[in-house]
């Protein structure tokens, strides 16, 4: 069982967005707060950290910190239907909160890619 279940359409969309922006094909799963209460899982175009767990999906390196992994378990990523491949739903074995997977999010372009 892979730690990250990446839908092939989502994989293609992520890779194409990274290439469009001239970024390396590596992303990190992060816990991100968009304000007022519930945080959510998101994708950041960022290089992996030293102790990250890394998985390769068809040429795309996906990193996740051990702490996040421990908190949420395995993560699945799918493309949001009407977002032109720019937004993704992230769900996990142990939902971060009651709104997990409700709203899609876009790739955060990190500072140190």
């Amino acid at each position, binding site marked *: 069982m892979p730690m990250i279940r990446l839908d092939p359409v989502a994989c293609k969309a992520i890779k194409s967005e990274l290439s469009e922006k001239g970024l390396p094909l590596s992303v990190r799963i992060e816990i991100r*707060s968009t304000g*007022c209460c519930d945080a959510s899982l998101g994708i950041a175009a960022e290089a992996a950290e030293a102790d990250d767990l890394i998985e390769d999906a068809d040429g795309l390196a996906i990193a996740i910190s051990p702490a996040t992994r421990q908190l949420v378990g395995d993560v699945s990523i799918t493309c949001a239907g009407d977002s032109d491949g720019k937004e993704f739903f992230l769900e996990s074995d142990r939902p971060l909160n*009651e709104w997990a997977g409700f709203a899609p999010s876009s790739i955060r372009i990190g500072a140190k890619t």
Partner: protein
Amino acid sequence: MDHYKLFINGEFVEAKDGKVFQTVDPGNDQPIATVAQAGAADAEEAIMAARRAFDSGVWSGLTPAARAQKVYDFADQINTQALRLAITESMDAGQIINFSKVTPLGFGANMMKDLANYASFKFPWEEEIKVQGNPFDFGRDYIRREPMGVCVGIIPWNFPMVMAFWKIGQAIIMGNSVVVKPASVTPLTALIIAEASKIAGIPKGVINVIPGPGGALGKVLCTHPEVDKISFTGSTEVGREIMRMAAGTVKKVTLELGGKSANIILDDADMQHAIDGSAFGTYFHAGQVCESGTRILVQSKIYGEFIEKFKKRAESLRIGYQLLPTTHMGPLVSHEQLATVDGYVQIGKKEGAELITGGKRVEVEGIKGGCYYAPTVFAGVRNDMRIAQEEIFGPVVSIIKFDDDDEAVAIANKSIYGLGGGVFSSNTARAEKIARKVRTGTMWINNYHYFGHFCPFGGYKQSGVGRELGHAGLEEYTQVKRIHVASFAHSESNYTMAILSDKKELPKYIYNCPTKINAGHGALSSVAKEVVDLGCARVLLMTDEGIIKAGLAKLAQDALSDFCVGVFDNIPQDTDLETVDAATEMARQLRVDCIVSVGGGSVIDTAKAVCVTLKNGGCCNDNISWARLHEPQTPHIVIPTTAGTGSEVTWAAVIKNKVAGRKSYIIESRLAPNVAILDPRFTMTLPPGLTAATAMDAMTHAVEALTTITTNPISDGHALHAIRLIKENLPIAVKDGKNEAARLNLAAASTMAGCAFTISFVALAHAMAHTVGMLYNVPHGVACGIMLPKVMRFNVDHATDKLALIALQLGVNTFKMDKRQAALTAADEIENLMKSVGHPLRLRDLGVPEDGLEACSMHAAGDPVSLYNARPVASPQEILELYKQVY
């Protein structure tokens, strides 16, 4: 362990699928209650119960006052449950007891009573629209504010009780039914509030509370066709999705979302107050407050001192179990939130911010577990760091240095959010200047987290849509309906409906000529008594140079005696905005309460514009309006010195806008002067040329008033007699200017023609005259006279009867003529009259260049009065032909 059930249609029920979940005390990780977990079927039932309750009118149909009585009972039940609510809230949400114990009364019962009282006594449920802003048709218009219907309130876990009060209270006070979904980690107090409502007798189905998973229930609640409005408080990411879902059935949405508010500490702030205020602004409820001041912006001069003292203050906060009255800061709401907060602290460290205290979990003595985190301070933060841009929602503060006030504002505004913010300063004016520039929903000066039931709360930018609380918040729970009752229930009298008809004449009319007229030799003497009768005492006399030279201004000033406190005489022919502004300024300085104008149309129109500008404020350009005024204006007495414009009784003032290169019109029934004094001595000094020109202005008013699409029998009467008087008296007055009888008759004719056209309007001859007047300074009356006969012939097949009547008034024996022939002789007779008094007949003699005619025809076609012409004007080409005929 206690067990809580869903509250649907006035009953506490288990979930249809029997699901149950546990809720946990974040202070010690112990489960405190089991709760029925609503699923889609329960949401459906709750929505439909709310719908039935709303549609039945059992609540929505009550008067606001009747609803208020029930809400007061509800508030009393909340007070009865206050202690239970407070303890439950603390255990469920981790809120310190010192806050939760004041919530039921302070933020629940009082809020409900205050807003219900406001809704029943002060909220404008129905409002008359005194001015419709439609000058064409008439009617009564009013606004009704009506409840929305079924409202959904989705509430977060940080202030579950306060939010339940807000969502339930505002919705039901305004007559709606509501379905509330509390946060799954903090579901209990909303259910206790539901219990209070049941005991208070709020009807079944009006309030429904369904705890359950946001993701699954959210989809049902936000897409259900029977839901009319969603009010959500929570994360920006979820709010965005809710808005998208609501778009499917175009629900009204209000969103209270995230924030990253700036609390600005100026170098003149009271240091201890700023430290305490900043600590309260960020560590209250462990920073789990969306409008927290989590970016503290500190001016460089005091930065070092502030950091040192703030670190000490943060470290002095007592962290502990939330039910202990000695605790300053309790736990975070959950272990997931704890992980999120700690994750951001690690990000801050990696970004290079300086962690000066905190940054770690805290064990509370005697308690195993719990979600406690130390008050954390980052200094040396750059505003572009993630810890300065993303809302951490925990006790973590980012301190940013700035040099001057503008920089502070720029930093504060560099955020996708705009929810709250603060300024600490000993200079209120300086602080307010900053507060006005920050793009955010609330700014506190020398305070933080201060809420009030009547103070609106909500966000700029991605912090939200709409407002909660206060008038603005209540309005969000209503929709606006406009009801129009036509004054004339007759399709042919409806100007707009006439667009689909070939019959252009409008049979309806409203005759409103309110000016009192004092006429006759020596009528001037009445002026002082009129001032007194109008309740005035300080008169500005307005006139122009020509009138002063003719000795007329002095006559008026003497008649006014001590009432005259000033004279304004700098009025050019065809007045302009600047002149009105200068006169208004003088009137303001002299604290004038009445205007007496002595002059021709230029003076009278200036005075009219001064009257409205004095009354309504601003400059003349602010007061250019058409059917906007509904109150009496500054009292105005007119002594006309020309017998032409009729401005002494009309609703119009014509003011040149030199910048725009066109004439502006104020058209208001409230512009009609209060009194017109027709004293023939005031026109006797008019030279023959001006006598003829101004009389032809009056003649054109009369003829056009008879031939517009809005003509009517009363104005026809005035117009016809005015035509006869002008025809008979103009040649006499031109020959013998001192003939008092002829002068008085011409003055009466001008006034009558004024009454006629102010009701029935003017038409194409005026449109054409306005244009050559504006572009080539052709005097208004002269231009009117020149255009009039040609336009009469142009209209011959559309106003035959009226033109034939005019011929009779002009003394033509039409006995043996057919109507059309008679109508055409009217135009001939006007030309004969002009010839007999030496009135110009051609534009070329008045400085109009031939190659300018085409542009004139375009302008005239665009002049609104051409719309009233008897014969519809098909194209500028037709107008050009007419201009050529008089060239």
